């Protein structure tokens, strides 16, 4: 029979806090000397009501405290990874939006009335617009002002 061992990073299965399932990596030494790693999930009790010998073997080899610690560290690491991924996703989304907005603003400043507007305050506001809606609103204000819409001189 092939010899096997378990890596010391076994942990209690996610979402189950009664230590009834242990997940581990079993390292089997094959006849040709090579090693094979298998991810294993052992239930404390088998369907027939008897104790699982593999489960007992892993727990006795590593100890409950070690598996508890592995589980805690793994969950903390997963939480960190999850938060970092979310932050990265948010940042990528924000960067894409800003790049898009930048392009829109450049185009707005190429509209003749906006390009030639001497209203510095509105020009600055347009440049600092935080989203498409704000940018369009300010661009409209500048256009309206330049076209005389606000003083009724459009005719």
């Amino acid at each position, binding site marked *: 029979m092939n010899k096997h061992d378990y890596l010391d990073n076994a942990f209690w299965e996610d979402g189950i806090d009664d230590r009834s399932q242990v997940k581990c990596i079993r390292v089997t030494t094959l006849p040709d000397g090579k090693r094979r790693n298998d991810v294993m999930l052992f239930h404390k009790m088998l369907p027939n009501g008897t104790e699982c010998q593999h489960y007992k073997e892993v727990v006795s080899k590593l100890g409950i405290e070690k598996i508890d610690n592995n589980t805690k560290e793994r969950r903390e690491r997963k939480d960190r990874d999850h938060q970092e991924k979310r*932050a990265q996703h948010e940042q990528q989304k924000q960067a894409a939006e*800003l790049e898009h907005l930048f392009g829109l603003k*450049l185009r707005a*400043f190429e509209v003749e009335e906006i*390009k030639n507007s001497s209203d510095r305050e509105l020009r*600055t506001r347009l440049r600092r617009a935080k989203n498409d809606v704000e940018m369009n609103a300010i661009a409209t204000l500048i256009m309206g002002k330049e076209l005389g819409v606000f003083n009724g001189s459009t005719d």
Partner: protein
Amino acid sequence: MDQPTKGYVIVASRTKFFYVSACNLIESILDFYPEAKCTLVTEERFLDDRGKRITDQIIFCDDHKRAKLWGMAKSPYDLTFYIDADTEVEHEDIATIFDLFEDNDMMFTGLPEERSYCYAELKFPGGQFELCGAVCLYDMRNPLVRDFMQDWYDLTVEQYANRWWPTKEDGTWDEDTYPRSLARWDQFSLWWLVNKEPKYQSLKVGILDDDARWNWFSKYKFKHNEKPIVIRHYSSAAAKQQDF
């Protein structure tokens, strides 16, 4: 003693996008620093009233890939801050840049390994890029700095034209130490002059404190900077592909 003149140099060549973006950048500088002197180096075909209205000086350049370096060498200011055209200023600290020289002749932003995920090429057998040329603070009162800027342009032109590359002792190009993939970067000619050209070894070249805020790439992770961003770099803006 006369106070040194101070100003910003922005170069826009090749496509209208860079001209439009440069005008926006200059106006964004003026938003925070209305007295700022800005020189726009651009092609005559792009210049319009907007460009004339917002600049201190206009210098015409050719339609050349590295008009940027040519323009930097032509700065009319003693203390010059060059900024890539595809950027925008977001903070009033832009007015303080000329106080940040310390005892340096030239200052750049850095290319640290922790931000390497944003850089196409960083390490090579002969060394590692450390300076980013997107912004550059330099003192044109120093004749060596003037020479440096001119040499940076000249060497880059030769590099792009495949007429210059570091050589081995036998005179052939040293492509093992300096892979030819580096030839597409003006950062390589910059690296060469700063690190290998004996004439410039006495130049004091520094990296700005909190450099990420002076050239904030939109792909940077937030953790690289805790202070307000001064210059945001839209290096991958889709707008570059559009017609203006």
